[in-house]
Structures are given as structure tokens and as C-alpha cells.
């Protein structure tokens, strides 16, 4: 990683009232790097990646994305959000718009791409997530797996250079997990910079460059996957892996 990191967190702190959710987080993600974040619930993983596009506000420390520092400056936030895609656990598709309208909305209104071009782009990404035939349906008419793939395509339509995944398969029925992970693996193979909060350890082994384990608001361990799974340094990491892989 000789290049400058595209996402950098330096001593990030966050409190919800008196509760210290993020403690001294430091993390550096290079271009094209895939980072998988895992940890028990309540460990602050989601909060951390939501800070990266400022859905959550950090109170101390620095977050720099693509060379732009996140602060109260609205312009900086908009710049970063255009370049950072996010996929949510609960999909968050817009139920009053068709699939195609969901995909073209941001290109049309944020990037001011002409309509024909935006629709072409949308169809391109729908094909990429293997559901072009659903373009004119409403999200409510799709299965969970299809909805999540639409949500991924919606983010891709903004041509982001970084993608954030916040437990993208946790709300899915087991038989739909694979179709979503396959799309994510395809993205990883194309060289997208990705930060994924997930418990899909098979996916992590297949694509991660770096594993991050969080507990009680701290990053406890950062390691390449081979070392992380075979020989975790930290006792808590070992316990956690024992619990989720043991099943």
C-alpha cells in the first residue's frame, strides 16, 4: 500500500450521551482494498462505517475520505457522499418509485446526468446484478435478495469509488444470502474499495485483504485473513471466532 489511503480514521471518538460508542478508532484503507469488519453486536461496527459517510457524526478525531476531511462543512459531506456508496441491512429502497426510478434518482438529481443516459446506466447495473427484467416493478414486489441487489445497483449508479456494506445479508432468508454475496464478490474482483460489516466468514475468507475485529467500541485486532482465522492474536477475537465458526 504505497499509495495514500482512500479512507483514513485517526483516533475517532463518539459518544451517545455518556455512552462511549467509538474509542480511539484508527483505520486506514487503501485503494482497492477490501476490509471486513466483524465483532459482537453493540461493538460499534455499524456506527463506525456510518461515520464514514456521516450518517453518524463523530465527536473527536479525524475522518478523511478521498483526501477530503469530514466536518461540519456541507460541501465536503456532499462530495464524500457522491463518491461513497452504501448498502444497508434493511435495503432502504424507495417504495414509491419503481426499480428503475430508484436507480436513476441520484444520477438525475445529484449528478444531473441526462435521463436517457441515466436509464442506460441503470439497466447496465441491473444486468450486472442479474435482474434487468424487474426494472419496472416496485420494490415491494421483489424478494429480499432481489431488493438488496437493486440496492447495490442503486449505489453503483453513482459510480462510487468506495462501497460501504452494513450487514447486507443479515435481513435475508438463508437461501437468498448467496445471490447477494455473489454480486459483492463480483464487485470485489473488479477492484472496488470495500468496507463490509458482515458475519459471513466464507465471504470474508474469499475477498478480504484485511480483517478488523471490534469489541466494545474498540478495534481489537487488525490482520490479513489468513492470520486472522488461523492464529488470532487476541483472546476476545479467538472467543468470537470460536462462537461464530463453531456453528
Amino acid at each position: 500500500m504505497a499509495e495514500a489511503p482512500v479512507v483514513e480514521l485517526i483516533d475517532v471518538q463518539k459518544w451517545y450521551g455518556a455512552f462511549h460508542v467509538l474509542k480511539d478508532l484508527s483505520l486506514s484503507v487503501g485503494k482497492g482494498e477490501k476490509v471486513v469488519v466483524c465483532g459482537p453486536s453493540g461493538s460499534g461496527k455499524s456506527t463506525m462505517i456510518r461515520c464514514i459517510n456521516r450518517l453518524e457524526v463523530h465527536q473527536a478525531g479525524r475522518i478523511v475520505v478521498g483526501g477530503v476531511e469530514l466536518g461540519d462543512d456541507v460541501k465536503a459531506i456532499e462530495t464524500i457522499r457522491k463518491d461513497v456508496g452504501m448498502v444497508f441491512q434493511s435495503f432502504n429502497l424507495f417504495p414509491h418509485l419503481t426499480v428503475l426510478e430508484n436507480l436513476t434518482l441520484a444520477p438525475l438529481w445529484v449528478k444531473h446526468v441526462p435521463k436517457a443516459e441515466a436509464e442506460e446506466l441503470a439497466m447496465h447495473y441491473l444486468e450486472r446484478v442479474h435482474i434487468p427484467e424487474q426494472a419496472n416493478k416496485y420494490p415491494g414486489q421483489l424478494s429480499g435478495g432481489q431488493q438488496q441487489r437493486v440496492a447495490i445497483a442503486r449505489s453503483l449508479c453513482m459510480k462510487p469509488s468506495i462501497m460501504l456494506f452494513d450487514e447486507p445479508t443479515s435481513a435475508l432468508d438463508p437461501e437468498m444470502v448467496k445471490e447477494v454475496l455473489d454480486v459483492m464478490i463480483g464487485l470485489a474482483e473488479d477492484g472496488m474499495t470495500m468496507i463490509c460489516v458482515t458475519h459471513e466468514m466464507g465471504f470474508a475468507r474469499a475477498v478480504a485483504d484485511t480483517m478488523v475485529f471490534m469489541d466494545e467500541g474498540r478495534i481489537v485486532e487488525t490482520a490479513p485473513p489468513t492470520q486472522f482465522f488461523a492464529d488470532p492474536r487476541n483472546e476476545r477475537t479467538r472467543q468470537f471466532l470460536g462462537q461464530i465458526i463453531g456453528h
Partner: protein
Amino acid sequence: MIDRQPHDHSATGVAAADVEEPSAVSLQPPGPPRLLGWARENLFGSVPNTVMTLLALALLWEVVPPFLSWALVHAQWGGDGAACRQAEGACWALVGERHRLMLFGVYPYDQHWRPLLATAILVTLLATSAVRAFWRPWLLWAWLAGFAVIALLMWGGVLGMPYVETDMWGGLPLTLALAVLGIALAFPLSIVLALGRRSELPVIRAFSVAYIELVRGIPLVSVLFMASVMFPLFLPEGVTIDKLLRALVGMVLFTAAYLAEAVRGGLQAVPRGQEEAADALGLSYWRKMRLIVLPQALRLVIPPIVNQFISCFKDTSLVTIVGLYDLLAATKAALADPEWRPFFVEGYVAAALVYWSFCFFMSRYSQWLEHQLATGQKR
């Protein structure tokens, strides 16, 4: 034409419900036995049920025949006041004789074609706006042009039409114009207030809360009085604002406060994730609200919003306290003639029918709209 559509929908809805239980129904022979079976099950199914049915029938027997006798059988449909005094029933001759005064108030009698035409334009615009296919930018221009023509007709002073002061306007056109303008102006204001109440900026939030709570705590009559009597005291000498405009402003400010709370209810019902997804895509606050949050929020609160629209329509009758002759006040004035004074009930029934038909249309239309907007997006 348009107000038939909700009927059509409910009709198909009923038909569909009937079709859904064919096995149970088709076993029974057609005709009266089915009706009897239904009556036995639904009207006389149990002792309390039977008692309620009999009580309801007795009540209907007490009320309906006398009413029909009064309203139809013994009614006097023509003639003058003297003929009505002879008749036992309702004096509908009054409506035939005095309807122009009831509909147009004290507007100069020989100029009544002007408010009539204005009302026709307004009703046409309303009917046009009800059709979803016409929800295009040109509709807004049509409304602006329509209101310009209406204003021209009502005021006159050009094209050989004598000038008529707003003090002389009255009746149905006044009621409709106040209601339509009141709703059209209060609605956007209410959205701003509702968004303000949920704003993260403390000053805007405090202002919105203070406004809504203050206005909701005052009766409309007081608001109208203030708009009409107190407001001019604050104006510089020589500046006067039209009485009608002052009443309109009062109604808009009042209605907006109530509507804002209905809209806020809708905003709160839109899942947080919707805003987050819009934020994550980089949409600005106003685009997020206009494209994502408000379309979902407003669809959810169509019933309370229409409720408020109906209230606003009927509240126009309160402008009479600041000296404007709306439909109800005009009706009252039309009944002042000693010849017709005994038949005030008929006059008010006629006015009530006019109010009711507009409100009923709004109610049915809102149900149809709700159904339309929900198509395809059920989760």
C-alpha cells in the same frame, strides 16, 4: 364524471368480495331465500341483535315517513309565500324564488352572470385537477389564468362590466374561492411548518412549534377578528388591505397550523432508513424531502389532510362575523324577506345540501386517490 369513479371502485370491491366465497353462496338457491338467510343471520342472529333491529326499525318508522311527507308528498314546489303558508309540507318554492340571492348574495342582481361564470370556471378547474393524467405543469398555469379571469369577472371595471367591490361579493363563489385559495395556500405553508418542527436547527424548530401551538390554541373566530380588526391597526396610515384578503390570510394561517400537524404525522411514519438512503446517495435536504420523504409521508396522511380540507371548506362560513357574505350568510340574508321568513328550515336545508355535496365529493375523491397512489407499492 369524476366523482363516479370512487363509486365504481367500491362497486367492484363489493363484487370481488362476493365472488371470493362462491362455494358457500352457490349452494343456496338464488332469490329471496338468500335475502332471508342473510336477514336471519345478520339482523336476528341473537336476542340483543333482534332487539337492536326492532328498535332501529321503530326509529326509522318514526322518522322517515313524516320526513318524506314533509319533504316530498305535501311539499309546495311553486307559487309564492302565501301558497306555501297554505301547504302542510316543505316550501321548496322558496329555493326556486330566492336561489339567486342564496348563491350570489348581495352581488348586483343584473350582474349575476359574472359570479355564475366565475363559479363555473372554478368548478371546471377543480374537476380538471382531479384527473391524475392532468397533473402536469400546465395545470398550474391554468389555475393562475383561471384565477385571473375570475378576479376580472368578479371585480369588473373593464370591458363594460361595472366595478363591484369585494364587500358586495358573496354566496357560493365567495365560499368556493375562500376554500380553494385557503387550502391551496395553507397546504404548502403547512409542509414548511411541519418540516420546520422537525428541523435540526433550533431557531426554526422553536418558531414552528410556537406558531403551531399558538394558532391551534385560538378559535378561528378570534383569528378572523384579529385579521380583520387588529391587523389594520398595525399598518401605516392610509394603507388598507381588502377585507376579503384579510379574512383569507386569517383562514390560511389557521388552517396551516392544523394541517402542519397532520403532515408531521406522515413525516414521522416514514422509516428513518429512507432518509439515510437518500443522504447516502448525496441528495440535498430539499431534494430528499421532495423526492423521497414527502411523497411517502403525504400519501400516508391523505385521510387527516382531507379531513382538514373539509373543515376548512365549512369554516369559510365563519367569515360572516367579519362582514363577508359567504353561502350561509347569503342564505340567511335571502330569508330576511318577511314573505319567506317562516321557511328558514328549507333555506338552510338547501344550503346544507350544497355544503354536503362538495364535502362528500372531497371525501370520495380522497378515497379514490388513496387507492390510486397505493397501487403497486404495498410492502
